[in-house]
């Protein structure tokens, strides 16, 4: 197997990793995903619960997150959410599903945190992510 021994920037690594199907990434530093501007839907991790759930409402209708139909979703500031409250991201990271419903069109979910804050990510979420650093 051929092995390249060269240094890649975080952005280059992310570009490589986006070739992997349905993998979720954890990126330190938001600037590394700047190349996705315009293609990705950015949502703050501190956004209301409705952004990370499919919720029923009257009349047999459901409310879906705004990003539901986009291919790339960037969830920023994961480290700002207390560890105990990060469970809502587990299914996103692990199964690409929300509230038991598979996300139809999103192929990649990228969580961003401030550089050096990986320890503020819940282990349960972290174990399902590919952690990208410089």
């Amino acid at each position, binding site marked *: 197997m051929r092995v390249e021994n060269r240094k890649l920037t975080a952005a280059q690594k992310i570009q490589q990793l986006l070739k992997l199907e349905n993998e979720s990434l954890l990126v330190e530093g938001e600037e590394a995903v700047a190349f996705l501007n315009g293609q990705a839907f950015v949502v703050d991790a501190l956004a209301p*619960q*409705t952004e990370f*759930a*499919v*919720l*029923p*409402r*009257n*009349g*047999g*209708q*459901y409310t879906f997150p705004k990003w539901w139909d986009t291919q790339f979703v960037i969830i920023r500031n994961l480290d700002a959410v207390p*560890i*105990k*409250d*990060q*469970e*809502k991201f*587990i*299914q996103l990271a*692990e*199964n690409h*599903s929300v*509230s*038991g*419903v*598979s996300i139809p069109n999103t192929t990649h979910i990228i969580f961003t945190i401030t550089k050096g804050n990986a320890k503020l990510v819940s*282990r*349960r979420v972290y*174990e399902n992510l590919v952690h990208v650093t410089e």
Partner: protein
Amino acid sequence: MYEKETFLSKEMVLGDGDNEYVDSRLFNQVFGLYCRATDYAIAHGSDLTWDRPCRWWLSSPVVDGAYVYVVNGIDIVNNRIGGYCSACERGNVAVRPASLFSKIGDVPPNAVMDDDGFYRIKVGEGRYPQTIATPKIQKELNRGAGQKLSHFFTADTVKCDERDEPRWTKHECRSLNGHEYVKVEIEQVDGSIHDNYFIDGTVVDIGKTLWFEVEERERTVGWWNPETLKWSKEPEAGWETWIVDDRGLYAGIQYEHEINGKCKESDFEETDIYKFHTEVFIKEVDATKDQSINIQHAREEVMKNIEVPKRKSRIAVNMGELRPKDKFSHAVEMGVTSIMLHGPSEAGKTAIVRSTFGKELMTSITLANGMKPDEVIGHGDTPPAWYVEHCKKCKANPDKMCCVSIDEVTHAKETVQSLIYPITDPNSRSVVYGKWALPENTVVTLMGNSKEESSDNYNMPEALFRRQELHIDVPAFDVANWTGWGLSKQDENAKYIKRPQVLTERKERTNIHPVVVAFVQANVSTEGVLYSSYDEEIGSRDPRTGQKQRTLGQRKYEMVSKYIYACEDAGAAVESSIIGDFLGDGVGRAFCDFLQKPALYLEDVLCGNTTFLQYETVADKIYAVGEALNMKPANETEKASVEQFIKKYCGDDYLALYQSKSVPPPSAAKEQGGII
């Protein structure tokens, strides 16, 4: 002495004096209809040309002594005198009086071995000549090979036309390669008009001298099918099959029903067969007993085994330990529909569920603090999204089990955990109580871990813990399991569990399996068996002792019963490790031991084969009644036999219990125009 040595009692042969002959039905039930002759018996005149096996011979002298009564159409009888009974024209047959089946346990046995599923009991009566030696051995012995032994074996060799006192002939004995053989000159069969055959198919050549091997006397507990002339391990439906002894005919003994003109019932002790037994046979077989064996010890060993023969265990139990993944899939296959997996993060809990169901049959939700309850339990008239998704999968795959997996249960506060009570409760199985029922082919799987495994965990409320039918512990990184999964092809990962029959077809049987009722009954006063308390701090396993914590109660035993019925339906063994997960280590072990006590089948009841069964305790009596209720006798006669059995072994109170719970057999229901 003869009775103790498994010979028939006088009463068994001649009846109790009130009847003209022994009740054939009773006889058949106890001994079976058929038996097989030894080659040694054939060499001395037993004629088995028609069938290799023959029916037991049983006669009863009548007052005038003129002829032999033949019981139940038994058509091969000894007739040394010959001629006064049409049934005797078939030839002269040496007949071995049956051993009392119920007395097997009283006989000091030499050994027990399980041979191809048959339960052979060497009854310890010593050895006696039985089977013809192979041609090669015949040649060697005729050349003088081996060593001449000092003792002899005797056979009743009175010629068929002799009416004098029996003349017993002794046969010389040689030892070769550790085996013992006797030399016999083949007897003329009086009145024989056809060829006679040994068991291996060799024609009996009158006057020729042949060698016969001296063997342990064995009894085989099995079923003889008179149609196929084959033995089977289990009773075959549709045939008249009975428990029998395949070495039925006594080697070389011929029954003289009449001696010196006396054939009254009181004359049994004067018959040839009695004389031969007491004066010759018992002494000879006694002499061949292995005196080195501690009879008492051997008997205890055998009785121990008799109580737990494989075929006769109440339930087949696999005592091996299963890996968590195998436990999980086995439990789902057997109809367990509410399971919780416990284990540290990254132990592979989700992988177990996913590899069992595949992504397409699995719907996952995660509990989280701060989540909107609507996400789990719906809003107004709108069910939660996961429920709709899951119902679609269940509808598209009606013959497969689909899974709702609820993750991070213990990461959520107790108030959040309480949202899933109705989902996991086997008695509810709906999103909220009474609303949005889960499809029948649903398995609900919870995943979580203890505070020891994750410090930010919350305790699991007792009510939720108790609602899980099964708790399975998953150790951190099960390498063997992971390796197996890693090396399987991607499209083979999901096993797809077919919907168990138990969910689709309810059978007529007791609500709770009789063995579970009996176990509970047997442990009414045993601490921690009927109900065990719950320590929220401990979770599924006590970190200090390593012991599993399981909450026992009515619901848990109902689940165990369901599991056992499902295993029976599927013809699968009960897994002891899963029983341990249901009931905890200690009680689970005790329950598995209990399962291995002898079972009771309808065939046993009809055959009167209750040798290995003991109904001394209330629990055993309840078990017997429960099994009897599940037996479904085919007609009133069979039902009467079952009732007679319950009355005899359990008493009138339990007979009343049986009668109050039983339904009429199909034939009776038809006659009454009832619903079957």
